[in-house]
């Protein structure tokens, strides 16, 4: 085994589960998450000589998130999977159902809003870092995140609290 293969193997062993979780949250489907991860890692391996000297994880994460967005959008265009909207009426869920409700609401978000939430609140990236991954402006990240949180809050039956959660404030 070459040094590069050894390094790549070590990177995958250390980070694959964490990246799989990002992929799952970004696409909402376990099988597709595994495919996204494998696709992203194959691309990373292909470019390993170039990527290994920087930090490879942001590279893989960017491939995963953008591929998830791209696939979701293509599906929408192809009308293979109709886009769902979050429930219009707020319903306070029992704690046992919260995960289910949140995941349903997360899946129902438009793909870039979903990615923004995952990157900001799961990966704990800053708005600037999130903008870099998504290839958009910080302002877009702010607006996308705000809209997404408003929908999630509505789905979970949480009322917005003025002034308490700054970037989750519903505008308009």
């Amino acid at each position: 085994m070459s040094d590069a293969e050894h390094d790549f193997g070590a990177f995958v062993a250390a980070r694959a589960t964490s990246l799989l979780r990002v992929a799952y949250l970004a696409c909402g489907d376990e099988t597709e998450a595994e495919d996204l991860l494998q696709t992203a890692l194959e691309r990373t391996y292909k470019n390993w000589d170039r990527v290994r000297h920087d930090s490879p994880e942001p590279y893989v994460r960017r491939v995963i998130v953008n591929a998830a967005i791209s696939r979701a959008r293509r599906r929408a265009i192809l009308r293979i999977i109709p886009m769902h909207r979050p429930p219009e009426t707020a319903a306070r869920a029992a704690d046992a159902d919260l995960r289910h409700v949140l995941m349903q609401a997360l899946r129902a978000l438009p793909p870039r809003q979903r990615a923004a939430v995952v990157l900001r609140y799961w990966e704990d990236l800053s708005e600037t870092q999130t903008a870099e991954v998504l290839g958009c402006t910080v302002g877009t990240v702010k607006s996308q995140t705000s809209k997404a949180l408003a929908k999630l809050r509505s789905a979970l039956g949480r009322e917005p609290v003025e002034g308490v959660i700054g970037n989750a404030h519903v505008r308009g």
Partner: protein
Amino acid sequence: MPTFEDEIRRIMADETARLRAAPDLVERIMRSRTKRRRARFAALAASVTVVAAAPIGYLTVGSVATPGPQPTASATLEPPAIDDTPPIPSDPPSFGDLGDGRAFGRVEVGYLPKRLKWSNWSVNFGDRYTTSYNFDGDKNGFYCVAIYMYEDDAVQEIDDRIRRYRDDGEGEEVTVGDRSGYLVVQFVGEDGMKGTPTLFLRMGDKQWAEIMFSPVYVKEFSGRQAVEAELKKIAEGLTSTG
């Protein structure tokens, strides 16, 4: 009291706690790369080899399976590794390699905005098919322009959709050369952005094109008029080859 964001973090952590990457992931990636190399080598070999006779037992498209000796393992593919995961649902049928992507199905694309390349992606369902164009030709990347073709019975869907837009007061009738069309901003699952500018072009009784600009790509242009002008130029350049 935890903030709403903290609550989301906790729920996401609970939801993903059970997920573990497959222990053989590295091997699968290496194997996948090797398979692709072998496939490329096989394709190259096939391109320079004249096959004298097809082995008995192979099926060709449209043929019917008949009883008889089955090909032996050594004559077919190597056995799958025991740790192979179940196959992922296959992609929809595509056109394969379209070269520069300017001709696909029964249509030719005469004009594309500067810097756009074929994305190496297409889908072909027969009476409806599509491909797209972006900056880097990466099939996993974002699209900039997508062209979706509808033919024969599938054109009914376009009639219905335009009727709905018309009834809702959205969009406008346009003329592109001597052809008619409908210009509208659609929302096709995008994310709170400003929608997908689209031009439906009637290319014949049984052929319509739906030309779409990605909301991200729209930002490359100075405004709505510039986007609509480009959509019309693409539409003008579309010719039917069917």
